[in-house]
């Protein structure tokens, strides 16, 4: 599906501030994978997503999607098959537009022409899909999104992304800015949608138990490298303690430090 070959990212190359954000990443994401990614701040998790999405172009290496090289494709071109949700719930939706307009805009990817697609049939379809969120949003389709809470907006962004049927979805700590209750709801919805539509997905999380609970594969990152990659039954057998031990074993860092580094909340 998607493949990174020897990808490196260096910020401020050749200056005193030179920063190797990713070093020689090799990663193959298979169709139907649900990968969770953990790592401390500055480990390169978001940079990895930015590289896959095309927000930043790699300093070195190749990115392949279905065996086609996309290394130099700009973000908007890759967005046609990649769906992405950010930590900030306002980034996925337009605040000063109504709910139905937002859904119409995100329903189909690619350039929009002078067609008027939002009609009674589309509204009915959107209403039906909104019911799944169980937030009562189906009765508020004419309201501007600025009136909605962060949790509602993030759930909506998730639904809109699923409806656009992306080949790969990137979830960048998408529940981190929400209160615990809403985070729980959005996470449950995420799992439900991914399972139902069998979406290939990658999810960054700061919560180790979530990383273990969800998905079929787990990546641990540190200092721009993937230091641990585990999947299938071996992943199922993981516990938070084992994960911390593993990190210690791999990086030879003190245990006390690891807890703060990986922050299991």
């Amino acid at each position, binding site marked *: 599906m998607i493949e990174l070959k020897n990808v490196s990212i260096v910020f401020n190359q050749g200056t005193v501030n030179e920063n190797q954000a990713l070093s020689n990443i090799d990663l193959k994401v298979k169709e139907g994978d649900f990968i969770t990614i953990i790592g401390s701040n500055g480990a390169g998790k978001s940079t990895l997503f930015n590289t896959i999405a095309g927000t930043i172009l790699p300093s070195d290496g190749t990115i392949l999607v279905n065996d086609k090289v996309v290394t130099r494709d*700009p*973000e*908007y*071109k890759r*967005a*046609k098959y990649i*769906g*992405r949700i*950010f930590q900030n719930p*306002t*980034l*996925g*939706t*337009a*605040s*000063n*537009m*109504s709910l139905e*307009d*937002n859904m*119409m*805009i*995100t329903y*189909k*990817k*690619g*350039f*929009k*022409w*002078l*067609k*008027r*697609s*939002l009609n009674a049939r589309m509204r009915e379809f959107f209403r039906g899909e909104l019911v799944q969120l169980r937030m009562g949003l189906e009765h508020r389709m004419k309201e*501007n999104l600025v009136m909605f809470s962060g949790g509602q907006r993030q759930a909506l962004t998730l639904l809109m992304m699923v409806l*656009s049927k992306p080949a790969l979805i990137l979830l960048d700590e998408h529940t981190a800015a929400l209160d615990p209750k809403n985070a729980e709801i959005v996470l449950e919805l995420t799992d439900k949608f991914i399972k139902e539509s069998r979406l290939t997905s990658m999810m960054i999380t700061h919560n180790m138990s979530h990383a273990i609970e969800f998905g079929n594969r787990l990546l641990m990152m540190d200092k721009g490298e993937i230091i641990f990659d585990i999947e299938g039954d071996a992943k199922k057998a993981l516990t938070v303690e084992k994960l911390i031990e593993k990190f210690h074993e791999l990086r030879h860092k003190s245990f006390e430090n690891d807890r703060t580094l990986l922050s299991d909340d």
Partner: protein
Amino acid sequence: MIESILVEGLIYGIMVLGVFISFRVLDFPDLTVDGSFPLGAALMVQCLLTGMNGWLALLIAFAGGVAAGVVTAVIHNQLRVPNLLAGILTMTMLYSVNIRIMGDRANVPILKHETLLTQVTEKLTGIIPDDYILLVFFLLVALTVKVLLDIFFRTDLGMTLGAMGNNEQMVISQGVNPKTLKTIGVGLSNGLVAISGAFAAQYLGFADVGLGQGIIVSGLASVMIGEFLVLKSNRIGVLTFCALAGSVCFYAVMYVGRYYGYMIHMTPSDLNLIKGILIIILLVMTKFKKFKKVAFKSVVAK
């Protein structure tokens, strides 16, 4: 008097709709307007003087405005120049271009020549009272532009333009190049401004290179007055109506200032100062209005 106030407000109202698109829908503060307004006037007058059909001349003026907007958008997109500076660059260059279009003159009169307005007046004489012919005509023109814009902003492309003004990342995530959208939006905006300039030239009886001076401030003031007068809404039809209504109000105030200002020892050159102060007052009042709403809400919550 009242009909000339309304006519003025409606002619400039088309320009205000253009400013509304760039400033409010796209969130792209575009200063090209100061140059594309006289560009529309110059193109219209020169085309009419060659004996061209009035509507064709108007189309050329529109195309000229679109081209000016596209230049600004390209400077901004390709050279990564901030949008304000890109607009100022185009505006400055247009000064020279406009003088060239007008045959190396700063002012071209068209008083005794046939224009769209004389044609319309001829056709409607006897049907509508003479004083109201132009008012009816411009009411039709302004409403046509408004309705076309309303339809445009309900299409998929129009809605995506609105989304870009709200949240550029969202548009990128939809696989749309925001640069293309900005080019379309700023082009359309300046096309409307040029049409407004073309009508203004015919109404005033001349094209002048200084016609656009400070027009962006007038446009912005009109947009803000419109927003201040009418309740906030997310319906594009209401928003474009606000822009037109704001324009009529603003130009009414300016008209009164021009003709009756002498009573308080005001000269026409004071008007720019008044415009600026008006915008500042509106900004302060909008802030106050928001503050009041918040205060009200918190009281209710208690």
